């Protein structure tokens, strides 16, 4: 199947943008956002709401995101919804951008925001055909070209040349990108909401591998003080903050390339510090425990993904954004392979119902658990918010659902170390 668009009769560079895929597929549309050239791994997101959160999610760093929902930009942009300091996607593909934003919180149009932040996008393409293509062929590298990028010496650039450019762009596999998105300096998020101005119930160090701002917020509104630290922090940096628990965030890149993070987490686990990880933080836990990770054909990106909590058999509808997954046995207790079972027993706690992908890990002998999806939502349903409570419980009781902790286990709090 070819999904190439017949090229337009005359090249009108102000009105033309071209999306080029690594496999040679090209789609012609209109420029959206900034004019220019961009490269990235092309992925699709099926959420019907939350484009502003998606754009500002650092996990999308170096990715070109295709929105399957046709109308994007209807509610404009506002100051509350960004999940980080900037837009991270490297390119944006939509079908029908809004001409007018309408929402009481809107402070500007998405188109202007994309231009301002220099995000090269393309609109008016058959996003469904593109999504089906990616579903069948898997994610791949792609480029968006518009404006002068489509011209060389006054003539349209040949498609083959654009394809070559795409093929020479770096691939996602093996990429260590957390450093590129992490906060350069540590900062603190104090307890908020009902706990604002009060003494924190607990202190957590959150290692920022691409953290979304909703995550520290979800912790802070539970009375937790959150120290967000750069991805290159050391165990000494963490211990210096005297935390009750450690959190590893979501983030872009291939977990197999995250050597520093895996080592850092092992240091945390060795100290029996309560650990909670989300997304990349789940993959890091998987790798720290000695499991492998692998790349999914086309990933899970959307806000309608059913996940079952295998302990309660309840289904939660989750927000997801991951291209890699942990390779661990589902439905059985396993001994974490790393270093001859140093971390004891582990179970897959959550599983994706659409395709049986591992969506959560729980250690039975050490205070650590993680999920592959996004309980902080933003965008997405709040069904999994209970996991933040579980983390608080884990820090409070030292056990929570990690009921298997034996008395022989070294103390569970860094404070006693």
């Amino acid at each position: 199947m070819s999904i190439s668009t017949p090229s337009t009769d005359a090249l009108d560079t102000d009105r033309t943008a071209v999306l080029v895929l690594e496999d040679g597929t090209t789609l012609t549309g209109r420029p959206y956002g900034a004019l220019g050239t961009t490269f990235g791994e092309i992925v699709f997101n099926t959420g019907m709401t939350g484009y502003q959160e998606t754009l500002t999610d650092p996990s999308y760093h170096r990715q070109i995101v295709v929105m399957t929902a046709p109308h994007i930009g209807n509610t404009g942009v506002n100051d509350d919804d960004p999940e980080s300091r900037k837009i991270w996607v490297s390119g944006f593909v939509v079908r029908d951008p809004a001409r007018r934003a309408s929402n009481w919180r809107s402070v500007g149009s998405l188109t202007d925001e994309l231009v301002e932040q220099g995000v090269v996008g393309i609109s008016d393409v058959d996003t469904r055909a593109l999504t089906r293509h990616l579903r069948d062929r898997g994610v791949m590298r792609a480029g968006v070209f518009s404006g002068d990028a489509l011209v060389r010496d006054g003539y349209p650039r040949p498609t083959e040349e654009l394809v070559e450019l795409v093929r020479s762009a770096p691939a996602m596999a093996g990429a260590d990108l957390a450093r590129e998105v992490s906060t350069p300096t540590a900062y603190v998020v104090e307890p908020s909401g009902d706990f604002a101005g009060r003494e924190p119930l607990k202190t957590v160090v959150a290692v920022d591998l691409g953290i979304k701002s909703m995550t520290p917020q979800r912790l802070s509104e539970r009375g937790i003080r959150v120290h967000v630290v750069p991805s290159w922090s050391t165990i000494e940096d963490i211990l210096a903050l005297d935390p009750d628990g450690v959190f590893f965030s979501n983030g872009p890149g291939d977990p197999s390339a995250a050597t520093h993070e895996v080592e850092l987490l092992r240091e945390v686990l060795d100290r029996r510090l309560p650990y909670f990880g989300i997304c990349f933080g789940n993959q890091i836990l998987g790798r720290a425990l000695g499991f492998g990770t692998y790349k999914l054909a086309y990933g899970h990106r959307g806000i309608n993904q059913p996940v079952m909590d295998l302990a309660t058999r309840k289904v939660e509808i989750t927000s997801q954004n991951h291209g890699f997954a942990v390779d661990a046995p589902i439905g059985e207790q396993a001994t974490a392979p790393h270093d001859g079972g140093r971390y004891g027993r582990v179970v897959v706690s959550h599983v994706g119902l659409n395709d049986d992908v591992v969506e959560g890990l729980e250690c039975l002998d050490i205070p650590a658990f993680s999920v592959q999806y996004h309980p902080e939502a933003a965008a997405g349903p709040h069904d999994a918010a209970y996991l933040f409570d579980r983390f608080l419980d884990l820090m409070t009781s030292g056990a929570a659902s990690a009921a298997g902790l034996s008395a022989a286990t070294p103390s569970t709090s860094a404070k006693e170390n």
Partner: protein
Amino acid sequence: MPRRTDINSVLVIGSGPIVIGQACEFDYSGTQAIRALKEEGLRVVLVNSNPATIMTDPEFADATYVEPLTTEVLTTIIAKERPDAVLATLGGQTALNAAIALDEAGVLEKYGVELIGANIAAIEKGEDRQQFKDVVEKCGGESARSEIIHTVEEAVAAAESLGYPMVVRPSFTMGGLGSGIAYDEQDLRRIVGQGLHYSPTTEVLLEESILGWKEYELELMRDTADNVVVICSIENVDPVGVHTGDSITVAPALTLTDREFQKLRDIGIAVIREVGVDTGGCNIQYAVHPETGRVIVIEMNPRVSRSSALASKATGFPIAKIAAKLAIGYTLDEIPNDITGSTPASFEPTLDYVVVKVPRFAFEKFPAADDTLTTTMKSVGEAMAMGRNFTEALGKALRSIDKGGAVFHWDGEPASGEELDALLAEISRPTEGRLVATQQALRAGASIEQVFEATKIDPWYLDQIQLVNEVAAAVADADALTRDVLVQAKRHGLSDAQIAKLRGMGAAGESTVREVRYALDVRPVYKTVDTCAAEFEAKTPYHYSTYDLETEVSPRERPAVLILGSGPNRIGQGIEFDYSCVHATLALKGEYETVMVNCNPETVSTDYDTSDRLYFEPLTFEDVLEVYQAELAAGPVAGVIVQLGGQTPLSLAQRLADAGLPILGTSPEAIDAAEDRGVFGRVLADAGLPAPAFGTATSLAQAREVAEGIGYPVLVRPSYVLGGRGMEIVYSAEQLTGYVERALHAAATDDRTTTGSLPAPLLIDRFLDDAMEIDVDALYDGTELYLGGVMEHIEEAGIHSGDSACVLPPVSLSEAEIERIRRSTEAIAKGVGVRGLLNVQYALVSDVLYVLEANPRASRTVPFVSKATGVSLAKAAARVMVGESIADLRTSGVLPAEGDGGLLDLDSPIAVKEAVLPFKRFRTTDGVVVDTVLGPEMRSTGEVMGFDRDFPRAFAKSQAAAFGGLPTSGSVFVSVADRDKRSIVFPIKRLTELGFEILATQGTAGVLRRNGIPATIVRKFSSGRGADGEPTIVDLITEGKVDMVINTPSGQGARADGYEIRAATTAADKPIVTTTQQLAAAVQGIEAVLAGPFDVWSLQEHTAASAARKAGAGA
């Protein structure tokens, strides 16, 4: 957890007749549920009084009762069938109310029957205003400030704190019945008075006005493990103040950020849990303040609703089917998603397209009614369309409405100055035509801010309408129709006809545009509704058209048969036609690849697994042709069936044939022959069949000439209409002039015609007074006629057959007369060239059988006849259309081996069809119910069937099913026209013998007294109350002191004397008899009711008994 093992049989309660607010969506949901339960090996018992439903087909449930949904009858059925459980959440408010009544009467407890899918406490929490308010607050939501009142005086007192305007909502009514907006005390007294009456608990909620807020709905499902998912969000384009059933709605919601949407979701989930909806579907409505985002929860329905049907069709998620499975114990994660086959039902559908629903109204049927849209639902149907963006979906939805003036246009000069001011004033009042008027205002240069101020329609939607205007301007101004111009036009929903009009291309313009389009390769592609935005592969070919890159229609080898559905429900073209379409697909599946084309989301035909392929598309020439082209590219196409979906597809037949599409069954030429008076007249003359004198006219002068030649009264109507639209009995030249002028005006404003003249001639017939009308449905294969059934109307000719009660087999026709009818029908079928179904209406006067009209298509009565005789006529018709003979069908068992519906044995049960009329919904601007006199214009929305061993019992059942039943004691008011005075003596005498008190006006009382019948004289309405406050008859009726009214109209004018009496009776919900034939039937029915409780038989038992009789006769 897997399905419960303690439930082996389930009683499913249907929703009864189609009424406004409760249409065939409940046939769709009930049918799905029955299939789902049968799949699980359960014994399913069904009760529904509506014979026009698919669910009541004997092949669906194990025992099917077409019986009234009264507590008495339901109790009898439960006692007989002893089901383990009752499922009542899929039959609308009617079924839910029936279940509550059974519970209150202790029936469920007595027979140990469990109510599944809902519990009474949850229903009460969801529907009781105060309890629900408490729930919402507990869930962190807000309700509008409100007060519950039980009397009008309490309401007036409450107004002091709430202020006007104020919303009035009665508890436990459906479709917003009895609700409204009060702007002052007078309004308040009137609306609250009605509301208290309609509320079964005499309870009304008054609340602060949230008019103009944004309105949203969520469809949720919950299972026994407390998993909750949101199936669909729906946004109303019309803001709060217009009932959601009357609003243009969009899925998914398009103007909420994720935070705002998740807030609605969180509240919704908390509410469904707090209310305690056991399992199944639930719908919650919200209002969102456009400037502050304040969220108010308006209401919830703890059951499958009209919106659930819409959500199912919009997303591909079969809510009713899943609800049935959840009710018997499954959890969402245990049920597969049919569409993908590989993922579970415990997910939330995501859409990569936009769905728009547009309501269809019938105000033209009720000219006196106030056409302002309010919180009381008034639409009679709806069309849904899908596109890859809003403008495309909207354009398709508007043209799916199939009504003049429904689509955007750019005719004439844009409004200017004062005209624009008038237009802006006009659109501040919500009406059927508001969206088009809004488009005109924007076209005329009104700013989006101005239009928003007037309409409160979200600016994003207004900008989209402005976008359509801009695209239209580009089309009109372009030097030539280039590819780019055409692509833009099609991507924003313009039809070829609209493009042609914009280009001033004249009558043949549509074809020219299409040819240019084809030459430039601008063709639609067909995408798939897959619940997951293409994340997983879809197994279900459920398609919609769009102008995009890639098509998803897969190739096939078996020949396809395209079946054209009937589009949005309207009065005169409703569920009956969907029934026939569904039967055709059932009859042809297997041998052919059946392809359904329809745009009505309420129907069984648009369920994704009814046909092999489903195209959710408008039923216009362009859209049907494109589907055909797409299917032709996929494999061989055997033909197109146009004769089962009513007039909408039938009217496309000739153009489709001209475009080269093979039309199955009766040819377009033969269809024309039946419609063309001249040709049809020759057919009748050749066969020696008398018809009333007639003529045709295309101008006023011609019409007068014809009418004078025939002699008044005459029956006048436009040709090619269904449901008697525009039909009138005309008694004078003056009345005729008025009629023709109105018709010319209508033709001038109908954008489906390209000329200002009448698109087709007016038909003028002699009107036969005092005739008995007979309806016949028959099947003809070219050589043999199968008489499906002969129906004798209870009302005289002149009342539209759709509004008339009728009985089958006929109770007063001799065998010789039936034989005459058979011969006449055969002659017509042969003369016209019918291949398939034929409906003929006859009038019998003084032993002469006149042919009134013949329609070579499925009629409204096909399902009734099929149920009453146990033979599926539509299935047989589909087989005839693909070339089988009636003899073949007799051999294969589709038709009985011998005999037909004209020859029923004497022990055959009697079926009475009764119409259900929507007068209560329609009020004049003064708030009075519109007139309820029946006439040649059809106004009923639905029908019920009473089925029993003799006519009186069957008639009594039909009345119980239609409106709660005939009175068995009390007082009857009689006031009849002079010509009727003679014929009422005997029936009225019988009523006095049965113990009724007779009230009458002076004149009628005199006649009765002289005949020895005691009658109390009451004051006429026109006399007003007496000196000592003696009430008039209208006062008595309003106060509920009259149990039945007999009032035949005397005048021929539109405003007959009895109007106030009839209006008051309708408003008081009491039976009203407007013809003497009805009176005779009513008296027989009352006798039958007094004789004791009804017996019940399932259709399957009737069929078995009939087979036994035949076997006995043969032995």
